[in-house]
């Protein structure tokens, strides 16, 4: 009985000390950490939970000190520390530029990922055919094109600049918060952006349209927070540049307005003039965007959604990678953001950290609701198996970086004041540059310098209208971008074979059948060349056939010309 009474007394004491909000906060944090670390090795999981609990605990303990500070004090400090903020922001931009240039310094002309070839090829088509480009990205590079800059150089310069633009957009978004510490928050988000491995990988995979589109999305969100009438224009441009990015913005704004208007009605208040005007302008801008991008939208609905629905489960396995968005999977993504999860989670459950004092409902609905809406939309799109799932993770990472900034700032300001805290902080934060450095260092180019040289030399080796049949899609964009537009690859670039035909060509035992299939092929137009890259060394039946059959003439280390001579074909040894 005495023990029970003691326990009850302790519970009462804990209840008086810990409000229900505290329990909710720790419960949300704990469940997020457990979900984020699901599936990891137990030792890694334990280390992660310890790291997360330490960071969260430190922020929680020093919460009283940063909550007590008055906004006016912050404003004074902001004015005094303006130079430091500029130095930190410029330093972050320097790191950003360095990490983006390292692949070029190490590997030369084409060190980036899969989409490089498609962009270079499209720009080359502008040069050689003078076709009016319809995509907003190509329209925006026309001034560079007119200047006569070579396509590959033009593309890479523009792609690196896009990273700086995106950093600027993040800065603008954070500077749009009407909080006293906005400059410092903006500088902190630049540091987080420069050290984000997900953003680097997005850059490495050469998603230029998406990166620029995301920049416009952030600028539109910044103008939205400033209650500016320019918001729809920048939202429209985000949509024109990259349809999925525009769709994310549209969904975010829809969720925001739904919650905001319901809250207004519940508190028996009228919808304000600005929101009304925004809704009307949005309703006008949406049909304009759909009209301008009608081809993309119609293709999405008629070809993609009608054939496969919205979820990846219906997509055939050979097209799964393409429809997932051809980027890192959700497991790798989760692994890369593990380090920042405790910080972003703290900001999510503690909106006070933005103002450093209790947040009013007006501030929450005007400034923070938009971020929470974007977070909710992107978490669903990133972790649900929807079409384009992988690409949404890059946008989710950006939103998480925005949530990371305030906690990072508090950590630096309050923990670094003590010597021991400073050491812990340096130790914890040093992990981010090390991890980022390793990611940058391990990112190798997809093709070797000699392969690229050979591709660029293709016009000199082959007849003017010769086509190339790529037997592995891995090489398709490179040949299309750097060798010839007459490139055809399994499943795209105008390919006429079904997946079943390709399987017969790749793995079938009959070389006679392969020869017949190639002879019957009318696209690309003959003379036909076949490309076998350096990674195609596994001696698959078709590789053996191309390398050894007399119907092919080896014109360069990786290129074979199909002469279609009906001489007897050697039989593959395993058959």
């Amino acid at each position, binding site marked *: 009985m005495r023990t029970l009474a003691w326990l009850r007394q302790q519970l009462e004491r804990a209840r008086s000390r810990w409000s229900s909000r505290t329990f909710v906060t720790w419960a949300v944090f704990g469940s997020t950490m457990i979900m984020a670390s699901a599936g990891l090795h137990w030792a890694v999981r334990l280390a992660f939970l310890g790291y997360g609990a330490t960071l969260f605990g430190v922020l929680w303990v020093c919460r009283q000190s940063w909550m007590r500070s008055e906004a006016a004090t912050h404003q004074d400090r902001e004015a005094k520390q303006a130079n430091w903020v*500029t130095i930190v*922001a410029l330093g972050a931009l320097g790191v950003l530029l360095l990490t983006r240039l390292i692949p070029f310094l190490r590997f030369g002309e084409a060190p980036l990922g899969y989409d490089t070839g498609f962009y270079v090829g499209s720009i080359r088509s*502008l040069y050689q055919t*003078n076709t*009016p480009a319809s995509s*907003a990205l190509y*329209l*925006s590079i*026309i*001034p*560079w*094109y*007119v*200047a*006569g*800059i070579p396509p590959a150089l033009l593309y890479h310069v523009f792609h690196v*600049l896009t990273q*700086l*633009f995106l950093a*600027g*957009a993040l*800065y*603008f978004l954070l*500077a749009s918060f009407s909080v006293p510490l906005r*400059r410092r928050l*903006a500088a902190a988000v630049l540091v987080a952006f420069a050290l984000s491995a997900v953003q680097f990988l997005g850059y490495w995979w050469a998603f230029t349209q998406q990166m*620029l589109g995301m*920049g*416009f999305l952030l*600028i539109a969100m910044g103008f939205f927070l400033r209650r*500016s009438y*320019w918001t729809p*224009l*920048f939202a429209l*441009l985000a949509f*024109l540049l990259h349809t999925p990015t525009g769709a994310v913005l549209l969904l975010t704004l829809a969720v925001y307005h739904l919650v905001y208007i319901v809250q207004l009605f519940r508190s028996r208040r009228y919808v304000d003039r600005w929101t009304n005007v925004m809704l009307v302008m949005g309703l006008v801008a949406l049909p304009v965007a759909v009209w301008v991008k009608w081809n993309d939208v119609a293709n999405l609905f008629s070809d993609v959604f009608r054939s496969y629905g919205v979820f990846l489960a219906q997509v055939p396995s050979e097209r799964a990678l393409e429809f997932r968005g051809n980027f890192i999977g959700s497991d790798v993504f989760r692994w890369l953001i593990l380090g920042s999860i405790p910080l972003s989670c703290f900001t999510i459950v503690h909106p006070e950290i933005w103002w450093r004092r209790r947040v009013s409902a007006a501030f929450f609905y005007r400034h923070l609701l938009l971020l929470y809406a974007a977070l909710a939309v992107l978490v669903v799109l990133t972790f649900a198996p929807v079409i384009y799932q992988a690409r949404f993770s890059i946008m989710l990472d950006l939103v998480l970086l925005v949530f990371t900034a305030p906690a990072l700032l508090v950590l630096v300001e309050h923990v670094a004041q003590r010597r021991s805290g400073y050491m812990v902080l340096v130790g914890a934060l040093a992990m981010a540059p090390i991890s980022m450095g390793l990611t940058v260092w391990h990112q190798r180019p997809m093709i070797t310098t000699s392969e690229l040289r050979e591709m660029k030399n293709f016009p000199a080796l082959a007849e003017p209208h010769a086509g190339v049949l790529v037997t592995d899609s891995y090489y398709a964009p490179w040949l299309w971008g750097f060798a010839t537009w007459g490139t055809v690859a399994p499943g795209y670039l105008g390919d006429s074979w079904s997946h079943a035909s390709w399987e017969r060509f790749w793995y079938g035992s009959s070389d006679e059948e392969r020869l017949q299939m190639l002879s019957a092929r009318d696209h690309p137009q003959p003379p036909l060349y076949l490309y076998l890259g350096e990674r195609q060394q596994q001696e698959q039946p078709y590789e053996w056939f191309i390398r050894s059959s007399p119907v092919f003439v080896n014109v360069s280390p990786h290129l074979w010309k199909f002469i279609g001579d009906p001489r007897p074909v050697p039989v593959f040894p395993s058959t």
Partner: protein
Amino acid sequence: MSIDLLVAGGVVLAYFGGVGLLCTELLGKNLRWDERIALAPFCAVAVTVLVIRVLRQLWGVWLPALPRWQVLVVMGVSAVLSVLIVVMRARRRMRKSLRARAQ
């Protein structure tokens, strides 16, 4: 890289910088210099996309089909004019604020 290419690249950069800054000047007076710099490239891209699209849609003018030097001269002139307008407006603003402070 040839001198010709460097000059042309410089003109394009000046065009983007100048037009971007002019747009941020027109977007709102309450933007700080750092916000303007962050916003300028997006404004320049937006203006370029809209102008090229409107020229093509309404008058059938396709910019790359015009002689290169003409386009470069137009871009150079717009860059210089944009910078002039921005500088003049900034000077006027500064004079106004000095006068207000003196009073």
